[in-house]
């Protein structure tokens, strides 16, 4: 992913507006081990979601690319999948450092819909069988 290190702050002036506040910069970059939909080791009982994901072992993988900006990838993960900011940042950093990350799992048709949506956003996404 591309990192914008330039002094973008120089742009952050609101034209023709009074009483507006400056932009919040994301301050937290720490990873978050918990994630929605991930299997929890706390409960011995399989919940419905876990069971169904065993029945339909397909995953959506997002791959690193040299164009997309880190904050844009977080924005897509947050707004499209509804991930909390910490989880979206954790997944983005996985993509950035490991080259790819599994961002969703479920039925094949659903993963194909997600893949089309990711391609619409300009992210490189593939579908694969979830091989344990």
């Amino acid at each position, binding site marked *: 992913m591309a990192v914008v290190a330039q002094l973008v702050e120089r742009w952050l*002036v*609101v034209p023709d507006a009074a009483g507006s506040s400056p932009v919040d910069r994301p301050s937290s970059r720490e990873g978050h081990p918990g994630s929605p939909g991930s299997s929890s080791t706390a409960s011995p009982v399989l919940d419905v979601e876990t069971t169904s994901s065993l029945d339909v072992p397909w995953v959506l993988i997002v791959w690193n690319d040299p164009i997309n*900006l880190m*904050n*844009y990838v977080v*924005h897509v993960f947050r707004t499209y999948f509804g991930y909390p900011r910490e989880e979206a940042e954790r997944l983005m950093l996985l993509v950035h450092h490991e080259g790819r990350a599994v961002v969703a799992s479920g039925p094949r048709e659903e993963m194909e819909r997600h893949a*089309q949506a990711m391609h619409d956003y300009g992210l490189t*996404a593939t579908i694969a069988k979830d091989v344990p």
Partner: protein
Amino acid sequence: MRIGRVGDEVRIEFEAEEAGLLTVLAHQFADVVRDPELDDAPLLAMLFPDAYRDDSEAAAEFHRYTRDELEQRKIEAAERIAGTAHEGVVVLDAEAADTWIRALTAIRMMVGSRLGIRTDDDEPGEGPLADIYGWLGELQWVLVELLEGA
């Protein structure tokens, strides 16, 4: 250019040449997607990647079902930029700003591809096109920051 957020809206104040540049690039992008040439293959591979890496048949079928709609939406998003960028203050609501950042990714892929950026290690280098690429990245970055600050 100055940019900021007022309530639910993003406001960008463009110089004439900035708005003109965005408009030209957006039109170029739409033209490339509509009528690509042979050396646009790397760009098309980024814009419309294979959805299956180990199953060419499934990848081809996915392209058959999704390519037209993806092309249409990317062209529409770019044309949205071309239709709204102008000298002076441009006001974008949340939906328009989302379309802009989506289109900016696509346009940056076009410019980055011309600069030979294929991996994270490739640098845009120096020159007018590299400056444009850097400028587009800053614009997209700030737009996303403003949307994320909501």
